[in-house]
Structure formats: structure tokens, C-alpha cells
């Protein structure tokens, strides 16, 4: 068993290569640059390709281009670059091209706080590109999870032919800690379904093979058309309202129908809890400390950690809310997930937010102060 002391950003690069990533295109931006730096070093060693593009728009375009030739491909950025990438997150969603977009969140809006952490992009990840579409977004809480979860990110993008957003933050990105490299048998690597019909019968959006149609590679003998325009099963544009409705519904269904397989969560001392913190990313670590401190004082506090941010763990939160006096959401923003949690809780218990958007992590004492407030409420 190999152990390393490694930052989250480096762990993402290592995990990506383990997942079969053979192509990276990106543009330098703090605090994500180590992902690009590490891959510029490591990708050529495994026969992979690294390119630094002229901006983030071009970076995701090149990633999508590479993916259409059958390569697992990724980019990494932070808030300002993530804003620029929205155009092609939409293209990848519409063209159903697998790709992984790492967003190491920093303070915003605009240039904001380049070297400080944030979780201010959770709603941009969900709704940043125009039009209706589902998205998958995952959030790691440790170097270990950066490694294992980025593999999951690739797997989900390949399985569902969709862009997957890896929402990490500056704390997790730069925190150096132990990574135990899992033995290869314990790692599952998924590769997209390829067509087995002859090229002349191939349709890139053929739903007779299910809601996630097989995707051929450019250069593998199959000729086909991909467009960002609304299209039918053949891939060619249409503005027929019935066909449009069918396409948009399928883009939604292929994720929502499989939400139980996509949604990953974690519990800490939740079984007997009367109060729950909902947290993700770096804040989940502070929340764990808060749980332990509260328990010492006899308060039955638990932690529900989101690993998948989108699709949202609404069913799970609804279930928990039935036995809680209150739910406290702790996140490095001004309460972005609150309405989403409230719509899952449906008034069954109080929902409070501990939010910070000042470039500092939410601390255990920030959370414990909020716990005290709940004590007063009840």
C-alpha cells in the first residue's frame, strides 16, 4: 500500500490519470493551477496530452473536441474561469459529450479573493449555463477524496454522457495530508458505451439503446454530426416542438432517473442526533469538529455531508428532517443552498444557515454559536 502526503489539487491530477484521463486543456488561475502543473508533468509520462489554451472558453472547447475522439478529458479552473466555461458546459450538456470540469472555488463575485476559499459557485454549477438541463456536481472534503471522487467524476461523465463539475475549494486544494493509494482492484473505472451497429445505421442520439445513447469516436469509422442546436436522434438540427420536448426531457431524465445511483452522502454521529449540520467540502471538516465539541457538552449534534451537490440529496434530507429539531447549513457563501434545503425539509424542522463569504472558512465555533441559537429557539 502506497502512502503519500499530498495536496488536494495534486490528488485530483493523480486520480484523473488513474481514471484514464489522457487529455487536459486549461488556463492558469489561482487556486487551481497545481492541477494543470501536475498534469503537464505527469500526462506525457502515460502517453497523455497537455495543452495550455488561450483562455478558459478555448480550454473546455479543446476538452470537448478531444472527448469526441474518444479520449477522457478534463479541465481545471476557478470562479472567473468557471464563468467563461459556462458556454461550453452547455454545449457538452446539449451534445452529450463526457468531460470533467474541476472548479477550485475562491471568493467572488468577479476577481474577488483569488487566494481565499469560497463555496460561492454551487448555484452557478447548477444554473450557470443558459437553458434547462441537469448537471452532476461533486464536492470532496480531503486529499483522499479528491483522488477517489475525481475517478467517480470521470465514471459518471462516461456513464451518463454528461459534463461533471468537480466543486472543490481553496482549503481542500492546498491542504497537504495523507493519501493512501487504493489498490487497483478496489477502483472501478467506467468507459462510455460505444456503438455496435454498423456505421451506416449509427445515430448519435439513438434512444432505442436507452436514455444514454452510445457515443462513437470521431476517427473510428463512424461519420456523424454533433451540434449545439436542438437536434433529433440523428444529431441534425430541428426546431420541431415535439422533438425538442423529447430531447429536453431525456436530458433531464437520464440524470434524475438515476439520482439514487449518483447521489453520494456521508453521515457522522447522525443516528441519535436531534440537530444536524449539512456541510460539504472543507466546511464539513469544521462541522465534524463542531459535532465532537457539542457532544462533549451533551448536545446531540450530527453531520450530514453532501458529496454529490447536484442532483441534490433532497429525499435523504427530507427523511432526516423528520427526526430533527433543526438543520443548520454551514457553507462558505451567504446561504446559497438554503432554499434548496428548505424545499426538501418542507417545514418539518427549522432551517438555519451559518454562512461566511469573507474569504475565511466557517469555523467549528461559528457553527457552535449557531447551535446555541437553536437551543434558545427551543
Amino acid at each position: 500500500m502506497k502512502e503519500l502526503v499530498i495536496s488536494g489539487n495534486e490528488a485530483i491530477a493523480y486520480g484523473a490519470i488513474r481514471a484514464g484521463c489522457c487529455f487536459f486543456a486549461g488556463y492558469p488561475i489561482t487556486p487551481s493551477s497545481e492541477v494543470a502543473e501536475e498534469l503537464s508533468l505527469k500526462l506525457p509520462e502515460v502517453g497523455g496530452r497537455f495543452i495550455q489554451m488561450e483562455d478558459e472558453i478555448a480550454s473546455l472547447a479543446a476538452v470537448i473536441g478531444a472527448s469526441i475522439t474518444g479520449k477522457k478529458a478534463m479541465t481545471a479552473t476557478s470562479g472567473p474561469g468557471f464563468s467563461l466555461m459556462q458556454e461550453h458546459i452547455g454545449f457538452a450538456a446539449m451534445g452529450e459529450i463526457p468531460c470533467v470540469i474541476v472548479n477550485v472555488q475562491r471568493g467572488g463575485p468577479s476577481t474577488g479573493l483569488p487566494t481565499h476559499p469560497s463555496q460561492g459557485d454551487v448555484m452557478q454549477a447548477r444554473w450557470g449555463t443558459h437553458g434547462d438541463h441537469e448537471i452532476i456536481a461533486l464536492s470532496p472534503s480531503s486529499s483522499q477524496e479528491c483522488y477517489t471522487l475525481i475517478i467517480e467524476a470521470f465514471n459518471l461523465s462516461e456513464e451518463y454522457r454528461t459534463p461533471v463539475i468537480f466543486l472543490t475549494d481553496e482549503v481542500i486544494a492546498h491542504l497537504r495530508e495523507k493519501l493512501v493509494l487504493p489498490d487497483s482492484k478496489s477502483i472501478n473505472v467506467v468507459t462510455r458505451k460505444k456503438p455496435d451497429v454498423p456505421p451506416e445505421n449509427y445515430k448519435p442520439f439513438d434512444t432505442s439503446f436507452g436514455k444514454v445513447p452510445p457515443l462513437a469516436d470521431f476517427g473510428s469509422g463512424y461519420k456523424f454530426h454533433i451540434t449545439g442546436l436542438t437536434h433529433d436522434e440523428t444529431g441534425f438540427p430541428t426546431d420541431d416542438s415535439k422533438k425538442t420536448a423529447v430531447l429536453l426531457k431525456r436530458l433531464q431524465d437520464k440524470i434524475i432517473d438515476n439520482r439514487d445511483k449518483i447521489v453520494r452522502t456521508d453521515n457522522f454521529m447522525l443516528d441519535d442526533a436531534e440537530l444536524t449540520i449539512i456541510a460539504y467540502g472543507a466546511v464539513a471538516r469544521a462541522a465534524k469538529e463542531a459535532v465532537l465539541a457539542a457532544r462533549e457538552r451533551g448536545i446531540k449534534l450530527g453531520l450530514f455531508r453532501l458529496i454529490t451537490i447536484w442532483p441534490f440529496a433532497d429525499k435523504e434530507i427530507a427523511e432526516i428532517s423528520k427526526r430533527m429539531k433543526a438543520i443548520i447549513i454551514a457553507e462558505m457563501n451567504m446561504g446559497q443552498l438554503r432554499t434548496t434545503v428548505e424545499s426538501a425539509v418542507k417545514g418539518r424542522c427549522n432551517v438555519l444557515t451559518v454562512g461566511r463569504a469573507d474569504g475565511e472558512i466557517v469555523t467549528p465555533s461559528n457553527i457552535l454559536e449557531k447551535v446555541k441559537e437553536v437551543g434558545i429557539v427551543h
Partner: protein
Amino acid sequence: MYTEIAKSYLRKEKFPSVWCPGCGHGLILASILRAIHKKGWKKEETVMVSGIGCAGRIPGYVDFCTLHTTHGRALAFATGIKFARPELNVIAVMGDGDAAAIGGNHLIHAARRNINITAIVFNNFIYGMTGGQKSPTTPRGFFSSTSPYGNAEPPFDLCNMVKGAGAVFVARGTEYHLPALDTIIYKALSKNGFSFVDVIVMCPTSFGRKNKLSSDATQNMEWIKSISIPKKKAEGLSQEELQGKIVIGIFADSLRSEFVEYYEREILKEGKCPKNTKSD
């Protein structure tokens, strides 16, 4: 035979096209297809990428691996395709607004990088699909739906720009001078490195009507003919004499190490990433 060759590369069931009567896009497309035929490129090993606009619709009509992307980004997608799978033949077709305005940054960087892609701009001085707004190549004083008093801005000379950025093959042709265009595009496809062709083409519907050339195709073509000067002849003329003229010919044809070949030779090592083969 001249048109039959081109026809054999079309997705005929996708016609009629979206293009207006008198539009020259079909003529340029046929020239590209003849050049591809002469190169002997297999359809399934040829990729055509486009952005948005009237030229953006071209890939939908041709029987290759085709990718219709976002406005201005054709070359960024094409770069990903070529770098990931260099054995494919990659062509990017763009409009003038597409390539020179929103996609200008991608154009100069593709030229600088010298990646083996052929970029062809369908330069009709106008945003045709959105209804005839001025573009970065609209000549000064000319009319469009957003320059109702005449265009106040000077235009780009795309060939100068792309040559300056380092492209190894740079040329300009027109829809009027088709045999010459066939030769130019064939040379561009043959070049190992970033090759660029600026093709002057008319949009009678928007540019022609607004600029007293009428919507008549032949009248528009006659105008192109009247203002075109071969490069050799232009070399003896002053800037004043060249005012309002279009210089056609080959402006760069040089040698420089190609990006993907350099990467594969100097940087890439053997590894687990699958190597591509044509039968893969």
C-alpha cells in the same frame, strides 16, 4: 464532373440549404470538396468543424465527421480534436464575424501554435444569419443594419493578421476566381501546419442590397471581380492605389515545426493512454 465530385461528398437529404439565393457559400464549399477529393482523404478520417452563422451550417451538409460548435470557437474545438487524434484531417470553416470578432483570439493562437489545421473564412463583410450587421471586415463607409450612416471603423486585413501570428500558409481567394481558389485550398490542405484561407464571398441579401449592388448575384460577383487585384500586380501599387481593392493570392508559404509533431517527438512518452490507429 466539376460539380459531380463535390456532390459525392454531400449529405444530399439535408438540402435545400439555409442559404439565400445568390449566396456564394455553396461555390466555396464545392471548391473545398474538390480539394479534399484531390487529396484523397477518406470521409471517415476527415473532420469539419464550424462555429455559428451561415458558414457555421456547412458541416451539416457534408458527409464527414462534423461538429457545429459555438460562436467563434471552431478552432478551439478543432485544436482538441487534432491534438487528441492527429491522424485525422481537420478543417475549420468560419464566417468573418465568427473568426475575426468573437473568435479572433482563437484564430491568432491557432496560427501561433502552428497546429496542422486548415482554417477557411467565408468572408462576406457581414453578419448574414442575424440580419446583416457590420463585422470586423466591413469596409469603412459601407452600410449594414448596424451602420446605417456608413461604417465608422476600418476593417481587418485577415491575411496580414494571421501571417503576423505565424501561420505557415496564408492566402486569399474569391468566389469569382474559382479555379484559382481550388488551387489555393488544395495547397492549404497539403500544408503541414496552420494554413489559412480568406475567401471573399458575397451576401447579396444583406451586404449587396445595403450597398447598392442589389440582391442580384451576378452584379455582386461583378463587383468582386472589379475590385480584385492579384498579389503580383498589387506589389507595384501604392497604398492609395490599393484603397478599396482586394488583393488575392498567396501571402505566406513557409516551413515551421508543427505543434503536435513537436509534442509527440520531444515531450510525449510511451504510456497507458491508447495510441490511435486509423483502424481503431
